[in-house]
């Protein structure tokens, strides 16, 4: 049951557009009912006290009838409001209708109350009665709760009732009864000037009160709307912060675990020598080699963690004014990985399928980390006799629609790293790069683990982080046993080029093929 304070109902802003707080007021319809009972009791008490204090006072019998009619009408409204309350608790989809019928109901009550008020007023002094102030009370309520048009109708009804009563008594169509019969009569109700002036004044006061409360209602409405939106935004950001904290905490736990792994293995291996499990010289040497390798693993893990932390912690706006030549970075990186690839028996080649500048808006260190990880992975997971190709080209891509972009074409430099390695089954199953994918920190492909190739599971996270922060584009495709293709693209820094005749990537059933263009490959 809706008694006492009712919390703000959880109603979508679209439903409550136009005095949302009215829902609360309407849910509190019992206020009206209580007030009416109070008014009736006060009226009856006043009549009883008057009879006791001033025994000779004559009141028209209609006055008692009018006061009792207030009670009778209240019984009717109580019944209707019980029905309506159920409707106001209707499911959200039907609340708009419920609010409308609630407003109609409130309007009907106010109109009926005004009629009863006028009746009582006509029996207690008419234009001379100070109870005329109750018209303003009703005008204020209608301005707050009803729609402007409804409030105007109610105000016009109030003014018409008062005017009708005043002029009816002036003309003698309605009987006039004094408010306080024991006082001398003023005869003001018979003075046309006074009746006209009072009627105009009361009408203006009614419309003025209605106007101001309606304005206040609208301001409250806007504030309410703003509060609802602000609250929603706050809830959203609190959730985002909580999620971020949870992610950080999980990341820290996993990172600590990952860093502990090589250290724990170093100690386990050292224990083998200390405990005399490995005693022969060859065995000790082999164990020492493993210890050294695991120390190296730990070091590279720390380096990659630091790289990821650097990318994550840095201000994403650093890319806005950054400038980096893809050709320089790719050449430097391929030169760095060439000896590693040769030693492994993997053919590493790189080509630029454009003779136009390849300046991109990415922090140079980030681009080096990003492309370096892709090349490192390609060389690492490609067995001897395999090939790794790095291709850079310029191309245009249509920006996604709002809010991500405006549908126009944007020039990118595409960097494609293609290998004939062991492939990534997880990518073959789903080319997604989001949550739960192989691009998440510390995720390693099943085939990489099965092949016993050491890795930190951080490389692709760094790649994704850089691409996301620099407003780039990432695509991955893999076929287990045949190889993988990773494509990253970064926005080109335009230098007066018109974008014609550039290479255009074409999506073909999940994979990407590339039309080469421009100058010959440099190698």
């Amino acid at each position, binding site marked *: 049951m809706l008694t006492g304070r009712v919390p703000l109902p959880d109603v979508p802003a679209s439903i409550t557009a136009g005095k949302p707080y009215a829902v609360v007021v309407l849910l509190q319809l019992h206020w009206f009912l209580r007030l009416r009972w109070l008014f009736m009791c006060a009226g009856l008490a006043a009549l009883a006290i008057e009879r006791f204090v001033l025994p000779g006072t004559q009141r028209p019998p209609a006055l008692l009838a009018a006061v009792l009619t207030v009670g009778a009408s209240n019984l009717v409204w109580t019944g209707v409001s019980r029905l309506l309350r159920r409707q106001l608790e209707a499911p959200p989809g039907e609340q708009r209708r419920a609010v409308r019928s609630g407003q109609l109901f409130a309007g009907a009550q106010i109109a009926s109350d005004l009629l009863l008020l006028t009746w009582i007023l006509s029996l207690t002094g008419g234009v001379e009665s100070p109870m005329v102030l109750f018209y303003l009370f009703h005008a204020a309520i209608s301005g707050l709760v009803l729609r402007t048009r409804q409030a105007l109708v109610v105000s016009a009804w109030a003014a018409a009732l008062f005017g009708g009563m005043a002029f009816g008594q002036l003309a003698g169509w309605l009987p006039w009864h004094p408010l306080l019969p024991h006082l001398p009569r003023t005869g003001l109700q018979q003075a046309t000037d006074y009746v006209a002036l009072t009627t105009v004044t009361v009408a203006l006061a009614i419309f003025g009160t209605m106007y101001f409360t309606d304005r206040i209602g609208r301001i409250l409405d806007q504030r309410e709307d703003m509060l609802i939106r602000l609250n929603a935004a706050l809830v959203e950001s609190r959730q985002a912060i909580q999620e971020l904290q949870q992610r950080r905490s999980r990341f820290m736990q996993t990172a600590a675990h990952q860093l502990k792994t090589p250290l724990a*293995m170093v100690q386990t291996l050292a224990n083998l020598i200390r405990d005399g499990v490995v005693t022969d010289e060859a065995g000790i040497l082999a164990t020492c080699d493993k210890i050294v390798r695991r120390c190296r693993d730990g070091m590279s893990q720390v380096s990659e963690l630091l790289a990821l932390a650097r990318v994550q912690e840095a201000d994403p706006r650093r890319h806005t004014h950054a400038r980096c030549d893809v050709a320089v970075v790719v050449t430097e990186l391929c030169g760095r990985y060439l000896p590693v690839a040769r030693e492994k028996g993997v053919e590493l080649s790189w080509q630029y399928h454009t003779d136009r500048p390849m300046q991109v808006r990415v922090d140079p260190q980030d681009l080096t980390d990003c492309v370096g990880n892709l090349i490192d992975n390609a060389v690492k997971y490609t067995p001897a006799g395999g090939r790794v190709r790095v291709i850079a080209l310029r191309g245009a891509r249509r920006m996604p629609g709002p809010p991500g972009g405006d549908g126009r074409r944007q020039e990118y430099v595409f960097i494609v790293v293609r290998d004939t390695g062991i492939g990534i089954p997880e990518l073959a199953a789903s080319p997604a790069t989001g949550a739960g994918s192989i691009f998440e920190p510390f995720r390693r492909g099943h085939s990489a683990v099965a092949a016993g190739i050491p890795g930190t599971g951080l490389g692709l996270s760094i790649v994704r982080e850089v691409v996301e922060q620099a407003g780039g584009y990432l695509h991955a495709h893999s076929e287990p046993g045949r190889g993988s293709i990773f494509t990253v693209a970064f926005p080109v820094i335009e230098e007066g080029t018109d974008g014609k005749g550039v290479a255009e990537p074409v999506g073909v059933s999940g994979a990407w093929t590339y039309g080469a263009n421009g100058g010959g490959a440099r190698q």
Partner: protein
Amino acid sequence: MATAGPLVLVIDDDRDMHDVVRLVLEPMGYRTAACTTAAEGLTLIRALRPDLVLLDVMLTTPTEGLEVAARLRADPELRRPVILISSAPLADREECDLAGLCVRFLEKPLDAQQLRGAVAEALRESGGGSAC
């Protein structure tokens, strides 16, 4: 006799761990087998029917080992004593959760005595016999 000893299967993505287990347990009369992934592990359990499984908690995902242990417990054909190994210490709640999944929990780094003791106890408790 080494060939007659209980068979211990190691499922750990760290190949150095395979060598450690082999070096520590084989001189004691155990036979060992090893693999790096959960899928291989399940295949080997069906094929070799080992007496004990040494299972790393963190395989390709941080808790894949626990999933494997749950599968071993759920399947009567695969069910056998499991010793979980991890480089992360256990929290209280995890300790309770693990109670049904494994007979022992070992935290890396390991030493020979600790590993031998845990394997011997686990096998003795499960009635799977022990090595020399």
